[in-house]
């Protein structure tokens, strides 16, 4: 698959490259650990995005943190890491701890919410947050604010009515929304031919009169260029755009899934050769930006940090049953609440 980056936006500086690499490593190690913790019976459930790291980190680096709005999905561990969420915070969610910043232990792990970073709360209901992205972007436009909204989802999500209604609305009003589809070829067990008769999710854009762009989601630099271009188009008033990043998940769908039932091992192995982290490492090493020794040291550090974060998060206090009925409605002074006027 050819990289189809539109123009060369946002050249990536050496420092940034190393940060990106580190973020991918952290996300991978953290995600692997979350699965292990589940298998050990220490965590009820895990859902992660091993394999999707490149496009996720690319997206985080294409937006302006705290300015642009981000509506990620459960696979976006690496996106959140790259935005600055601490592994400990993600693990607090895994263990359903009281201090889980995403939901206070109410939601499954990796159901993100981070107001300061404009990461908007989402449910488990596939595609249901796409209209929210359109609404946020409409508000940006109405209020004359230079903000872009990025919403990510899988290719399965594009089958839902909410996908259609949201992209259609955004297209009609030319809203600054980047619709980012992380196409990993499967919605749980269903391969993408069961979701659509077109070859690429990007083809869906044609029905809305907007640009659809496919990119190799396992190529960090290509993905970053394409996403930066998309964000740029939105800022230039030429949004929305639909970006499809072709990728693959290395894990089962969740800790409750057994992907051997539906994915041929050869296919998994074939994609393993295109591991986005390995590819980026090779590139960095080829550029002389990373020596094998530095790499080994970095990976050891990351491993240690995650292990520490696990220990810390697991020891944190559980949710208090007495808080179960809190925050069904706003409590307190309604002038303080977010969102109104």
């Amino acid at each position, binding site marked *: 698959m050819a990289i189809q980056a539109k123009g060369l936006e946002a050249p990536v500086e050496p420092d940034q490259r190393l940060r990106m690499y580190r973020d991918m490593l952290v996300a991978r190690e953290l995600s692997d650990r979350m699965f292990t913790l589940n298998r050990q019976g220490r965590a009820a459930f895990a859902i992660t995005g091993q394999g999707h790291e490149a496009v996720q980190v690319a997206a985080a680096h294409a937006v302006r943190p705290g300015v642009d709005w981000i509506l990620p999905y459960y696979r976006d561990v690496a996106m959140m890491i790259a935005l600055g969420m601490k592994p400990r915070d993600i693990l607090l969610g895994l263990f359903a701890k009281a201090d889980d910043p995403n939901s206070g232990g109410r939601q499954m792990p990796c159901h993100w919410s981070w107001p300061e970073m404009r990461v908007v709360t989402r449910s488990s209901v596939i595609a249901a*947050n796409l209209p929210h992205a359109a609404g946020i972007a409409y*508000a*940006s436009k*109405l209020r004359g604010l230079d903000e872009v909204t990025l919403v990510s989802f899988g290719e399965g999500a594009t089958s839902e*009515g909410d996908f259609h209604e949201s992209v*259609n609305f955004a297209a009609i009003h030319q809203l600054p929304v980047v619709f980012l589809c992380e196409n990993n070829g499967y919605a749980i067990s269903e391969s993408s031919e069961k979701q659509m008769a077109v070859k690429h999710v990007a083809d869906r854009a044609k029905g809305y009169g907007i640009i659809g762009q496919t990119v190799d989601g396992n190529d960090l630099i290509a993905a970053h260029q394409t996403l930066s271009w998309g964000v740029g188009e939105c800022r230039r008033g030429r949004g929305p755009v639909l970006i499809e990043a072709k990728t693959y998940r290395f894990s089962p769908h969740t800790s409750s899934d057994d992907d051997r039932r539906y994915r041929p091992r050869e296919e998994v192995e074939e994609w393993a050769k295109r591991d986005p982290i390995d590819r980026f490492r090779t590139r960095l090493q080829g550029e002389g930006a990373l020596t094998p020794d530095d790499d080994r040291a970095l990976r050891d550090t990351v491993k240690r940090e995650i292990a520490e974060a696990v220990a810390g998060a697991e020891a944190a206090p559980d949710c208090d049953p007495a808080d179960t009925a809190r*925050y069904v409605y706003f409590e307190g002074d309604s002038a303080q609440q977010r*969102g*109104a006027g």
Partner: protein
Amino acid sequence: MSTKTYLDAIHDAMWEEMERLPTMVVLGEDIQEGGVFRATDGMLAKFGKDRVLDTPLAESSIVGIAIGMAQNGCVPVAEIQFADFAFPAFNQIISEAAKWRYRSNNAWGCPIVVRMPYGAGIRGGMYHSQSIEALLAHVPGLKVVAPSTPHDAKGMLKAAIRDPDPVVYFEHKKAYRALKDELPDDDYVVPIAPAQVRREGGDLTVISYGFMVHECLQAAEELAGDGVESTVLDLRTLAPLDRTAILDAARRTGKVLIVHEANLTGGIGGEVAAIIAEHAFDDLDAPIRRLAAPDVPAMPFSGAQEDACLPSKETIAAAMRDLAAY
């Protein structure tokens, strides 16, 4: 004071809030031309097409977009053209709006208003007459209101717009032009939650809401002629219910009839009866009666059959007499 219809009240509440809140947006289908019931009449010219937003014909996104707007500093008031067409938006209302604050542990709020013209008696047939309020009143996280008078319609819509949480606002189509009140010219709010005693009487209590309150009041009037004095309690807010007012009235009179035009089974009446049967049991002097539409999927277009579905002052009065005689 000025004479206003129920529809004027709704229109004016939005208009005045639009003037006060520069980022308030009304959105829905045919909003710009004034709306099929004219609730947004004149707003396009006054507030412009960006704040008076014609959406595509797509209810799920109407609510979903409103939710998004509310996150980014706007105050959205979404119109679902008829409550009957709210079902495509149920996922956005129930999975998203209602659970927004709870699931984010109070980090995010979802201050949206979803207006839904509902109710029968206008020959609307099966898909322009439904009363779907009980479905949403079962959903914690939502507030559900159904004002019965122009005064409340205005005051509660303002309260809804100023509320930090999602409010589903049921406005009765038959009330639009049939009901008139003298309304204060100054800004006022009718708070969400408290029910309202519309009439006091010691012999029995009739509990209702929406347009049916007026049928109940007429029936109560008629019974007063025969010396039976009844309390008529207008719930006004269907979620959360005003348990205190319900229990007070039930205890005071010992006999309760609940009336609504939604179908009987699983309706608001069931919940109200259950609250009374649990918490005012010792004060009850008679079975708790319910009068509601029969359990048909929706009211027929045929006038004869629609009338057969709707409680009326005659059938209410008859039920009241039975109860009084118990």
